[in-house]
């Protein structure tokens, strides 16, 4: 079992990755039912692809360079976070204020950010003496680069997001269930939406280290989608989503450690399998 060696052996290198993965799984598990119920899966996709633009900018600024210190790395994740938050807020603004359909706004931002990120990464690679950034790693996840800093970041984001979600839980539930009526009773829908976009954006930032830009959506959408197949109450849906979230990450990471293949696709496929099982269970129950 390589998994045990990676986690507990004398050269245990994957502890930060596993710790980060647990935080990310809990974070996605909490957020996921809301993303599914509010039909925000594609918004999550848009935000996660916007992260790639941030990766490009950070790479050109030299923040991902080998040997760059903790400060540079924090700066790099900061740039990525800014891109994600800006993408989340622009999607909302374009569709609400400019009258552009939401999926079109996402399509535009997604493509723009991916193209920009890719060009910037190529530019950075062309420079003499610069260390290259693994494009594939950012697209599909890279556990090897998850150090203690990233693990801490993931837990801090989890704590802050949980606190924020608890704080807005009542207006959030009402708004998610029935936006026009919630707004007519004085709930600030715009603020709730913005808060949710920011939480989703920082979630994407910590998720993309593990699952990559392309597959981060799997972690944000599938736990909730599976939970909604098996549960009907708010509390049980949340618990099921957390359980699916953790289960998918554990299965995916173990498969990744055993095969030494990238974690993103392994985790994504684990989630798809869990969703399939939940769907079958729901169909048989009727």
């Amino acid at each position, binding site marked *: 079992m390589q998994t045990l060696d990676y986690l507990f052996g004398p050269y245990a290198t994957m502890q930060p990755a596993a710790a980060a993965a647990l935080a990310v799984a809990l974070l996605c598990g909490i957020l996921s039912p809301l993303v599914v119920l509010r039909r925000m899966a594609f918004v999550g996709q848009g935000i996660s692809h916007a992260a790639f633009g941030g990766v490009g900018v950070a790479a050109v600024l030299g923040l991902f360079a080998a040997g760059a210190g903790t400060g540079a790395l924090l700066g790099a994740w900061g740039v990525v976070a800014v891109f994600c938050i800006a993408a989340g807020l622009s999607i909302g603004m374009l569709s609400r204020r400019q009258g552009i359909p939401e999926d079109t706004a996402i399509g535009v931002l997604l493509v723009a950010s991916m193209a920009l990120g890719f060009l910037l990464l190529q530019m950075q690679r062309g420079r003499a003496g610069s260390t290259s950034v693994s494009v594939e790693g950012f697209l599909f996840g890279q556990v090897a680069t998850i150090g203690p800093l990233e693990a801490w970041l993931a837990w801090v984001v989890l704590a802050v997001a949980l606190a924020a979600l608890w704080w807005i839980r009542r207006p959030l539930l009402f708004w998610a269930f*029935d936006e026009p009526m919630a707004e007519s009773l004085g709930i600030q829908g715009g603020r709730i939406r913005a808060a949710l976009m920011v939480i989703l954006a920082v979630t994407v930032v910590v998720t993309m280290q593990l699952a990559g830009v392309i597959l981060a959506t799997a972690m944000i959408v599938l736990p909730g989608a599976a939970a909604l197949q098996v549960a009907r109450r708010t509390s049980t849906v949340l618990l099921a989503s957390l359980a699916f979230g953790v289960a998918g990450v554990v299965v995916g990471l173990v498969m990744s450690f055993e095969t030494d293949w990238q974690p993103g696709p392994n985790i994504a496929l684990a989630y798809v399998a869990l969703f399939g099982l939940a769907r079958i269970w729901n169909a048989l129950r009727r």
Partner: protein
Amino acid sequence: MSPPLPDSVPAIRLKGVSFRWPGHPPAVEDVTLEVRQGESLAIIGPNGGGKSTLLRLILGELTPDSGSVEVLGMSPSEARRARRIGYLPQRSAADRTFPVTVRQTVEMAALVGEPPWRRPSAAIRTRVDLALARVNLEDLADRSVAELSGGQFQRTLLARALAVDPPILILDEPTSALDPGAQEQLGEVLARLQSLDGLTLVIVSHDIRAMAAPRSGSEAGRALCDRVACLRRTLHFHDAPEGITPQVLAHVFEHDLSQVFGDVRVLARPTHHRE
């Protein structure tokens, strides 16, 4: 709760209200209307006759081009903020696949503005229980909304509108999507809200029969609505002593409806005053 207003203040008062969507002929024109506290008024009229526009003016979602709208002496938006108006829209945006129970749905409205750290107070829980009882849903309080029939879900939304204890209730085509049994149940609930709880009701409907026909059952002989107003851009009929005649209906709907409604003695009974 604010102190009760003197009964002389009308629940709703419109004076010479006109509204026109840009590039269209006026949707409503020179509408003057007064609804007393505790009264129930049906607004009927053909599709596109301005019924929904009129409701949105009363709800403060639209501002009249000319004329004035007052709700309990306030502007409509003030009244809305002060929770004086409960509203049941024709098509609710509420997501019926949402994993919430009937009670949670009603609580959502009752908890608006409560600080996040405070648990629901006894007063709020009582208000939620009362709202559920008023719509006959006590027994289904813990059922998830996905398992409800259309009529039960409609009554859940009605309970949610009642959860802030509004003196005025505005309903847009409340029965249009319901089967006859569910319509009957909702009618019972609404009649009781008006007669027992003294709510002011304004109901937009194209179902003249449901609004104006004498009811059977507990409120035998009484129509759901005290008065009926017909709206086709202008308010065609209101408070006429002879009631709504087939001629008035024909004028409003541009058809001779006496065949359809011949058996209904439609009625504006003289408005009764509450003691």
